[in-house]
């Protein structure tokens, strides 16, 4: 499908998914009620629910999905590996160890956030320091270092889960599977998404070249080492921002770029904005289902991203062959 056709199409899904998210919940609203509550400054329950609860949550889901999808695009270009996702380089592992350790010690929300941020930063610095050699056109060292750090974090996560008791375990599992209910720093996340997304689109020509091979990219005038470092840190910032907002929500970063590619768009100039739009809409949909389907029970959103995404991706893959 032509990107010129796909772009307006995906743009239409944005208000649709956001509208869907705003209408559904423990207090179902009709589109007209949502409209009135958004515009009017009356003081009824609908307005309160919408402005205080639903809108922040839907906006958090959207920006989180956009961040993850964009991070996936950048890492797949950097590592030239179709299996790359925002968590492959150990960033989420570091963040999870930090968050879970804080939870185990009974820390509050702010401390947990700070701790997960510290864990992620340590992982980012460690993987970059150990895995990246400037001037060496071999990205496998970085990839393997990331995978090893991830594995180490995985072991620590299991250890922390074993040490935890009762309610703590549930909180930890929600963090691990993604949870958008305690969203903070929403404006900052939007700023990150817009700035990094815009920069990545501006430099998308270089990403196309880079994805075709590192020597080739160097021969075509791309300063490969600097690009790799830039891509790594851009993806790291996106991932950390998404982790702070919603925990480690799986599958979005891996699946969304592939879905766009399978539809037939591969030039990064289009892939970047389209992935961000689709990632955002998709996560809003998944999150709405996660919090309404068995309400008042709430499920981790990561469960639904996988449940929704797996069949779609499998269908796209089988159609292609």
């Amino acid at each position: 499908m032509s990107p010129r056709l796909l772009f307006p199409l995906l743009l239409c899904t944005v208000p649709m998914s956001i509208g869907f998210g705003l209408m559904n919940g423990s207090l179902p609203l009709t589109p007209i009620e949502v409209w009135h509550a958004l515009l009017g400054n009356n003081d009824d329950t609908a307005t309160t629910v919408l402005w205080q609860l639903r809108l922040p949550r839907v906006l958090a889901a959207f920006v989180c999905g956009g961040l993850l999808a964009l991070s996936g695009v950048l890492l797949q270009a950097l590592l030239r590996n179709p299996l790359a996702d925002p968590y492959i380089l150990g960033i989420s592992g570091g963040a999870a160890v930090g968050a879970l350790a804080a939870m185990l010690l009974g820390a509050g929300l702010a401390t947990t956030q700070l701790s997960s941020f510290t864990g992620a930063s340590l992982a980012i610095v460690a993987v970059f320091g150990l895995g990246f050699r400037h001037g060496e056109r071999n990205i496998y060292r970085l990839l393997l270092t990331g995978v090893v750090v991830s594995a180490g974090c995985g072991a620590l996560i299991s250890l922390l889960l074993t040490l935890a008791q009762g309610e703590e375990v549930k909180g930890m599992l929600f963090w691990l599977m993604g949870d958008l209910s305690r969203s903070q720093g929403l404006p900052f996340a939007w700023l990150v998404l817009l700035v990094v997304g815009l920069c990545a689109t501006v430099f998308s020509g270089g990403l196309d070249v880079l994805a075709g091979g590192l020597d080739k990219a160097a021969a075509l005038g791309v300063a490969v080492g600097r690009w790799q470092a830039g891509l790594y840190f851009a993806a790291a910032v996106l991932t950390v921002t998404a982790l702070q907002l919603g925990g480690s929500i799986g599958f979005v970063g891996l699946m969304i770029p592939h879905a766009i590619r399978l539809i037939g768009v591969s030039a990064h100039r289009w892939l970047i904005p389209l992935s961000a739009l689709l990632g955002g809409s998709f996560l809003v949909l998944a999150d709405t289902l996660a919090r309404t389907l068995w309400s008042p029970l709430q499920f981790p959103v990561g469960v639904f991203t996988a449940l929704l995404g797996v069949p779609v991706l499998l269908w796209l893959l089988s159609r292609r062959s």
Partner: protein
Amino acid sequence: MVCRELDMTIRPGECWGVLGQNGVGKTTLLRTLAGLHKPQTGMVSLNDVALADHARRNLAQHLGVLLQSEGGEFWGNVQEYVLLGRFPHRASLFGYSVQDEALAQQALAQMELERLSQQPYNTLSGGERQRAAIAQALTQRAQCYLLDEPLQHLDLRHQAQSMQVFSRLKEKGCALMMVLHDTLWAQRCCDHVLMLFADGHALHGPAQELLTRVHLEALYQCPLRELCVEGERWFVAGV
């Protein structure tokens, strides 16, 4: 260690063939000349300026490189792949101009790839990929080309066609250097030859003088038979 001492100049309008046994360092030499690999000693310069002093992009505007293996998966179609050759010349950050696209189209036609231009690159066969890579290099419009085994994977028709394309580049004043294994093509198209020997020494000079049985036997360390057909010397490995 590829080569102990090498002091040579490639001038516009010259076509050099690089010959040598497998693993002797032909690719390493080409990569060094392309600035993709730092030499242990000595220096390489382009237009009298050391490679290291050229900005990467500026270098890519003057120097086209055809790599033996690209080591990358390209997700787009063939036309988009060929268009990447315009990357160093791109005026705008947001895509390629109409002229860029016209040049890519021209190169696609030269390599007989028009029919495949909308097909995904990763569905191409080895020979088709090689032709696409050559088309990409042509699209780059460089003054100087370094070609690592440009004829690999190509059938006879496309071998002849590609060599014709390279000869035309030479006539237009481009400087070319290509790694070849076929001495016949070296004779037909190259005016100079560089021979890299396994012991680290190198011979370079006019193709007519160097492409003899004695030199080639020493180069490949195997007995050769020489056949003369219509004034062309063919060298065949003797058993």
